[in-house]
């Protein structure tokens, strides 16, 4: 277990940088995590992040497909917002656990 400081707050993270307690997250922190990932967050990013946090809190499976069906963004747009590995990056920025889904 490790800790990282974002926006002046000490956050417990795992060794890949994912938050251990998603309640420690807030929007200011998200901006700093995103910066580490090379992403400048926009409102669209936050809409996706809210969707992800909501889904994870409800205990529903999180997949690329579910984000694509969220009505917020299509899959192509999701890849554009979080280039490279969108689900991994978006969950890290959203302060939730790394997704375990294969799709």
């Amino acid at each position: 277990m490790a800790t990282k400081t974002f926006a002046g707050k000490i956050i417990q993270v795992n060794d890949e940088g994912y938050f251990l307690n998603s309640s420690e997250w807030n929007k200011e922190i998200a901006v700093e995590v995103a910066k580490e990932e090379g992403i400048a967050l926009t409102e669209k990013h936050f809409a996706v992040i809210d969707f992800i946090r909501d889904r994870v809190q409800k205990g529903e499976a999180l997949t690329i497909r579910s984000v694509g069906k969220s009505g917020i963004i299509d899959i192509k747009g999701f890849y554009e917002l979080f280039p490279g590995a969108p689900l991994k990056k978006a969950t890290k920025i959203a302060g939730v656990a790394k997704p375990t889904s294969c799709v």
Partner: protein
Amino acid sequence: MSENNHALKKVSIICAKGSIEDVYAALVMANGAVMEGIETKLFFTFFGLDAITKKQMKKLHTAVLGNPAMRMPGGLPFPSLLGIIPGVEAGVSAMMKSQMEALDIPPVDEFLEMITAGGGEIYACKLAIDMFKLKKEDLSDLVKDIITVGQFYEIAGGEDSQIIFT
């Protein structure tokens, strides 16, 4: 996890068979690579072409005959004699598809869209296309090109690249 210097940069996946499980093995591997940010090429040949042929892609089946891993719901062996009854294979295939849907695994056409939306590229094998007398119009619009095996090897090359035959 620390990043090593030889993380995969490119995977080229070959799908040569047309049953549900063979096609999905290739699609899941390809989509998974795209999700990881790995450059992904997906190459369909021989019976695998069914997965990208407009007429066939929604009608894939799983073999109930000659498939020793086939079992009844509950785990009992699946009698071969049952498999020869018309409609049984279609029923089993429909059941497979509904179980995949429950895990958020999309139908073939949607899966191809997901892969290409993330930057993955889909190719068809020229030799098999000629052999099955197919044309570009018969294939999904998401197929980038019909290529020879030589062209496949050209695009599959590069540092930290792997070729996977499913």
